[in-house]
């Protein structure tokens, strides 16, 4: 393989522009708009996540949310009774293509995680890294060739 491996490794890795892996995982989440001072949170959902990544989540819902809107996200990680809650911002939204012909409009959203507390961050990192490891390792802990 000689010095070719490093060059090719460099080429492959540098061509990967993703900062974060995205995982399709059927998690349920709730969301709420930031309340007016003194008002209570009005949680909407549950909605099923389309995908989840280190930087954010994707989901579909019939409620129209403006791009740039800041929302609170609450979701339960598997086997975890305490939900993770973080602040997200709507990065993009579009009419869901599969629902275009439907009478009821469904929107797809990409939410960027804006901030979470350190404990939530640690739990979220643990969950995500475990999902990513699981995607690429077989039952024996060896790498899959995917």
């Amino acid at each position: 393989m000689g010095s070719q491996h490093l060059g090719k490794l460099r080429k492959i890795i540098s061509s990967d522009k993703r900062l974060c892996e995205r995982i399709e995982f059927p998690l349920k989440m709730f969301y709420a708009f930031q309340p007016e001072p003194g008002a209570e949170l009005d949680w909407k959902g549950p909605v099923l996540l389309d995908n989840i990544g280190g930087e954010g989540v994707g989901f579909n819902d019939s409620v129209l949310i403006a791009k740039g809107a800041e929302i609170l996200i609450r979701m339960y990680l598997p086997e975890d009774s305490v939900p993770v809650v973080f602040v997200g911002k709507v990065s993009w939204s579009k009419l869901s293509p599969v629902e275009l012909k439907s009478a009821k409009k469904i929107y797809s959203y990409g939410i960027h995680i804006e901030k979470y507390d350190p404990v939530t961050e640690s739990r979220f990192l643990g969950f995500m890294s475990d999902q990513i490891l699981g995607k690429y390792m077989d039952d024996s802990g060896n790498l899959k060739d995917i």
Partner: protein
Amino acid sequence: MMLEHAGMRSLFSGIEYRVARSRDELAQAYHLVYEEYLKQGYIHENPSKMRLSLHNLIPETTTFIAHVDSTVIATATVILDSPLGLPMDELYQNELAGLRSERARLCEVSMLAHNSDLISEKVSLMFNARKMFLIFFLFKQVFDYVVQEEDMDYICITVNPKHSAIYDSLLFKNLDSEIKYYSKVNGAPAVAKILNLSTIENDSAASKRQNMHKMFFNGRTDPRRFDEKFRFMIDDIKYFFVERSNVFEGIGPEEIKYILDAYPEYDLTGIIPRSIEL
């Protein structure tokens, strides 16, 4: 299989993880740490373009590398506790005293770096599979080494607080939650963490992170990867610690005595200045 179309296994098949076995590998590791610390603003430029300290000269110190085609792309160094202490004693001596009073066997993982031209610092360690495996395979070597070969009780580490959550998710605990500032890295903030090696396997099993558990506890590193660790000869000591750095400047007589005792078969006259020998 052509590497261009390689999956994760093929991609990593060409990367070898093991202890550094030659002067060149060690020099590359020290240079990599220097380059990456410089990019992070942790150190100033120096003519040697290497990052090393007296702890590297302790015979029990072990440098691990990930290398491809004779090029070191990631490294970490394990420093065992000794009369010289650990590098983190500069800030955390009082906190470590509690563990030492229990006769706990301590080591510090230090000089952790990877080639950021290969995988950018902007890429998240915990969210990007390639970066995660690159670093975790190195961690796995270090972990198995300190457990299998050195029978340590705790791995200690200081990390920038911005990376604190990563180590928390790897089940490290805070040795001290106070943020301190490291003069050795241009005053960068640091928090101290420890990993309890006597409880980690149970802690990991209970953490519900089954893939992380699989990564670190399914199978052990082939002990041959720990063989043939590079041992400094007199010329190497002169090269790294005199010609390429000024490590011996400003160190005390007790430190010098410890080093001289560690290499009783060497005549270090002219390498370690007589004026600071005991």
